[in-house]
């Protein structure tokens, strides 16, 4: 078997435990694996950002901006953003190398129980616009959602383009909501996306869901940017 990222051959060690259990799919070699860092240590209880404060300055800003009532109840992210992660995401999303998504499968599944879970939740992946989906042939958020053990519903669609990476947080949230509700959901929702950067995209989605009767909206993202 070869490392998905560097193509080096991966040696699968046989110990007497994995004689009986099939080994976990080891998709990265040790060297590449070591370059991805899961978030740990002190982090913001609301958005997973590494900080010494219990709630970070970003989240304080959001709470104030939304008059004390942030539409996003909580975000949990798995990985930190570093150069290697950025390269992997670029290749996965923008070059369209679908396989790379599997690199994150095990960790994304394993970390899932850590976020607040209640009964009867629904996972909703952040959608791409139809044009972008046609271009890329897959939605990275949908791929991530499929790794999770609970029901995933494409409750949202996207009517405006994705290109807003240069905008500030304020500009992003003040622009028109890019999403359209396809199906109202009256159970708690966990939004899934690849990256939490300013949090504006997720809050647009959360606001729309809540306007139509959704009681709680969390987000579970691969990376805290």
């Amino acid at each position, binding site marked *: 078997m*070869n490392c998905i990222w560097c*193509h080096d051959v991966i040696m699968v060690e046989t110990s007497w435990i994995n004689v009986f259990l099939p080994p976990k799919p080891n998709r990265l070699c040790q060297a590449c694996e070591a370059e991805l860092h899961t978030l740990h240590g002190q982090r913001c209880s609301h958005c997973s950002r590494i900080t010494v404060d219990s709630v970070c300055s970003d989240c304080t800003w959001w709470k104030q901006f939304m008059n004390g009532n942030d539409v996003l109840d909580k975000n949990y992210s798995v990985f930190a953003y570093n150069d290697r992660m950025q390269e992997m995401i670029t290749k996965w999303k923008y*070059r369209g190398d679908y*396989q790379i998504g599997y690199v994150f499968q095990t960790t994304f599944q394993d970390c899932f129980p850590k976020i607040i879970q209640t009964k009867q939740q629904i996972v909703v992946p952040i959608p791409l616009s139809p044009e972008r989906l046609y271009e890329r*042939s*897959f939605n990275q958020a949908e791929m991530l959602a499929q790794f999770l053990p609970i029901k995933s519903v494409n409750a949202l669609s996207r009517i405006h383009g994705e290109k807003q990476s240069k905008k500030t947080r304020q500009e992003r949230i003040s622009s028109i909501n890019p999403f359209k509700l396809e199906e109202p959901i009256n159970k708690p929702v966990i939004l899934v996306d690849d990256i939490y950067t300013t949090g504006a995209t997720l809050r647009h989605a959360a606001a729309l869901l809540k306007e139509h009767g959704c009681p709680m909206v969390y987000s579970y993202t691969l990376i805290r940017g």
Partner: protein
Amino acid sequence: MTTPSTNQQHPLTQQDLALRYTGKLLLRSEIDLDDDNFQRSNFSPIPSIIRRNFLFICQRCGNQKRSLFAKIPCQSCHQTHLYCRNCIEMGRVMECTPLYFWSGESPNWPQHQRPCSWTGTLTEVQQHASYKIVQAVLTAQPELLVWAVCGAGKTEMLFAGITKALQLGKRICIATPRADVVRELLPRMKQAFSDITIQGLYGGAENKDGTAQLLIATTHQLLRFQEAFDVLIIDEIDAFPFHNDPSLLFASKRARKKLHTTIYLTATPRQEHRVQIDRNKLPHVFVPTRYHGHPLPIPTLSMCFSLRKDLKKKNPPARFVRWISKRGNPARQMLIFVPTIGLAEEMTPIIANLLLSFGIVTQQSEVTSVHSEDPNREAKIKSFRKKHLRVLLTTTILERGVTFPSVDVAVLDAGHTVFDEAALVQIAGRAGRSSDDPTGEVIFFHDGKTDAIVHAIRSIKQMNSRGGF
């Protein structure tokens, strides 16, 4: 010749399109036409990935390795199918989307009466090689290997052959392994052929349409061509990545026309080519002397017993320190080759301090490191050339292609596996490049001679003796 712009007011004629797309093999997304114009034009599709006897084959890059194909549940065609991971950096090749080639009329490339504006002269050995190249072009001889020592002046040797090809209305591509070399070659070629449109094609190039009669491209760019070139010149045939990547060989074969001349350039041919030469299977011409008539500098060996231990502790080896303090010509700049990126970065401040203490440099900033992952590589090479930088610590990235007129060359840990025979010959070939300073010190610091070191020195001596020294 003008290049049609993409935001055209007038519809493009089939002739415009022929010029732009002839000889290309492209994904639909690489063809900058709206669907109407596309459908009205003479593009023919071919399957992009074929399955044959349990094999998958990518038709753009020739990849057949199963581990470099993957499946995607495609939401464009709503089926799960293959895509190629090998050539994905150049746009994704998917089973559901074909590759297109231009099947309309092929343009007639102009015949240029006197395309060459270069007025220099060639040495006798250069003239001999140049003549062989012209003959190869003239008779559409399929292959010719030009074995020219580092500093032989191979670019100038190509001028007559390129001139002949342009006079005959042929299309020419010079393919070279690295973008650095394309950037260095392009202005020289534009100067030598001042009335000819010449384009440089590489990853970061501004103009990527590749429509000129004469192209200088990185070897990877050949993946976008099919039956395009009458004359294909492949520079540094022995170098990474051409030597290691079968898809580049595949692409170079596809990029040339059925009737073609392929010219290989190398200073350090690999075993397979030497065998072919010895068996008279590959026509070749040997250029044993440098253009300035001086022999290749022969590396000095310096044994350092605790070399790797020293380097681990970031101590410059004692013999290296002594060499630095007593160079014959302290005015020369220095290239110091090290085996790894980490070592290049770690040793830079230490060596800078050393040089400061000897008064060889006056500021820390005259010493820096450069390697393949360095985003400022281009700028640093430029400033070394302008002599703002005095000393460069480098990985094998500067072993070839880029030349400086007056340098001394040291290799720290020459016995490391990254320094194979070809690399060491190339590194030694960095010294003594200009006729104003045709010698230069080359010194290999090692902790035990490797086969590569022994063979490299033997091969340099052989080349010198074939050159009459």
